[in-house]
């Protein structure tokens, strides 16, 4: 009932959007996302996907068009990366505030300057506070599955927030892996149809969307997003459970994934494709009789902080890997967020892989050793040249 294709991460995202039978795509190319929007253009051009493909002149317009389209009741998809995401910055907040369930694939790539097309996670993490749900995928199968799940999460009545599915540039976007593609009828049965009640621009029932919210109303709208984020935690778990039941694949509980955490005192916290390498290191060490663990954060917004605390309760040495840096604080963004809720735990922050610098098996080994002896609260830029 399924088909296995050996495809890249960008193709996996495009296939997922096609399986979800999106109505409107508005997108602009940027490396390393480009092949995703090219693939979608091909689908539309060949009549494999019945959608309006709006060939916008910029990412700002891509996101603006997506907002218009989603508000008009269409299932809407876009994809971007780095500078493109940064150009969307203004309207990302609008999308969340207007509660339009757009799904976007973001190929994680470093931000200028210097110009750099390679992977780190600074781009999406810089949009942390925009009100978008953020999911980070470890491999191409997870990209496909997460995009499918994203529609169901975004369109849930208790959520109605846009979702960004992130995949590491080149590491996933350009690497081919076998990916299992479910049948479209099963996907559509799983997602259901988008029937907007809240934000539908219908001439038969006129509403005003995006009104001016003075100090009497603004705070409540932000609070409503916060509550929707809270609801999303449960919805993400439920959607993930249902997906697992139906398609026989899963990623932890949908929010986090614990790998060998039970017995491990030394644990790495990480997001995205690097989790694959970390798992390999853990398996190798297990063979030598050493128990070390991984806490993979799949969902960074909403951040399931209680679950993270619980998962780390036995950990003594916690290394947080960051492919981002909050300049002026000398800390990675994931570290700041995770550690703000951990008490009486030793945590060390490793800034790794900025601008696509390799993170090897040996680097991970080194981190596991280093964190045991490093002092609490330290920041280490791994492999920094003199």
């Amino acid at each position, binding site marked *: 009932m399924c088909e296995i294709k050996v495809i890249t991460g960008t193709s996996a995202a495009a296939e997922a959007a096609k399986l979800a039978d999106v109505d409107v795509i508005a997108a602009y190319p940027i490396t390393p996302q480009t092949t995703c929007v090219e693939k979608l253009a091909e689908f539309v051009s060949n009549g494999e996907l019945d959608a309006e493909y709006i060939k916008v*002149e910029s990412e700002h*317009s891509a996101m*603006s068009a997506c907002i218009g*389209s989603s508000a008009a009741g269409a299932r809407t998809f876009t994809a971007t990366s780095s500078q493109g995401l940064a150009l969307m910055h203004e309207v990302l907040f609008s999308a969340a505030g207007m509660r339009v369930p757009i799904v976007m694939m973001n190929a994680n790539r470093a931000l200028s300057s210097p110009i750099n097309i390679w992977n780190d996670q600074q781009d999406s993490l810089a949009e942390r506070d925009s009100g978008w749900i953020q999911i980070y995928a470890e491999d191409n199968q997870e990209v496909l599955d997460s995009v499918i799940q994203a529609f169901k999460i975004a369109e849930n009545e208790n959520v109605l927030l846009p979702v960004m599915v992130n995949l590491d540039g080149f590491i996933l976007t350009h690497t081919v892996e076998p990916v299992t593609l479910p049948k479209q009828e099963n996907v559509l049965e799983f997602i259901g149809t988008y029937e907007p009640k809240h934000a539908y621009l219908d001439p038969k029932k006129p509403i*005003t*969307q995006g009104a001016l919210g003075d100090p009497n*109303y603004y705070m409540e709208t932000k609070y409503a997003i916060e509550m929707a984020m809270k609801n999303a935690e449960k919805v993400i778990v439920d959607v993930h459970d249902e997906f697992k039941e139906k398609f026989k694949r899963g990623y932890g509980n949908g929010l986090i994934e614990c790998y060998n955490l039970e017995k491990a005192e030394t644990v790495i916290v990480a997001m995205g494709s690097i989790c694959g390498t970390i798992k390999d290191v853990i398996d190798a060490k297990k063979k030598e009789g050493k128990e070390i663990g991984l806490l993979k954060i799949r969902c960074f917004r909403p951040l399931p902080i209680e679950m993270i605390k619980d998962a780390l309760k036995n950990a003594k040495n916690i290394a947080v890997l960051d492919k981002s840096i909050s300049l002026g604080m000398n800390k990675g963004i994931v570290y700041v967020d995770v550690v703000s809720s951990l008490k009486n735990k030793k945590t060390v922050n490793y800034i790794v892989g900025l601008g696509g610098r390799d993170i090897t098996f040996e680097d991970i080994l080194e981190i596991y050793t280093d964190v045991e002896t490093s002092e609490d609260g330290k920041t280490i830029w791994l492999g920094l040249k003199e």
Partner: protein
Amino acid sequence: MAGMQFPRDELFAPGHRGCAGCGAAIVARLALKAAGKNTIAANATGCLEVMTTPYPETAWRVPWIHVGFENAAAVASGIEGAVAALKRKRQKYGSEKVNVIAFGGDGGTADIGFQALSGAMERGHDMVYIMYDNEAYMNTGAQRSGSTPFMASTTTSPAGSHIRGENRPKKDMPMIMAAHGIPYIATASISYPEDFMNKVKKACEIDGPAFIQIMQPCTTGWGYPAENTIEIGRLAVETGLWPLFEIENGEFKLNYRPLKRKSIDEYLKMQKRYRHLTPADISKIQEAIDLKCQEYGL
């Protein structure tokens, strides 16, 4: 245009928060009357948006959306795409034509929103873009825009002892739009409501993008008593400063020819933004108008 029936329905409700005598409100009211109920409006940030939708109030009786200052055309592109897809795939939005109209001020259109507008026009979306032109950024307190006329004093092109107000001529939006090869372009004035409404109707009926630039006197930014809005608008046309024309499928057509063009003096003297002008300045402006009128055959 004689004998046109003005629809009685008010799709733009009275009771908005615009200044007394605001021309922008007239633009919206007339445009919706002409377009009718089956319309979705996208509005750029600016006076029109702010004065019509302070939550929980709204002056719009058609579905309306505002996202940002620079993206009304892009938002409208998305709406148009969605309506097309949903009509085709899920029989939504009925069989009647849905008019997608974007409203933008001169700033939201000729300056910051120019790229999005150019993109939307070039892509051929079936939409009507209405640029309501009050010749400055009024919502933020009358700063100059690319559409501010030569020698007008604004807060960022103030007339001082060294500089005589705005030092550049008004950006020629209709001709820039014409270069996009879109099927319909028109200029209009709130003082000629039948002409404007006919143009909106035509723009809605035409397949593909249409662009209408309507001059809209602004009591506050231009500095004149509220009751003069219509008269000032009319003088702009009667002097040849703001000719009314259409470009339909590349064909230029003048819609109104004043019996005798008035001199620009009175128009300028009625407004505070021009009060610094000397007779020599006024002659300069008159010369520029005469030259342009020659081009237009006025």
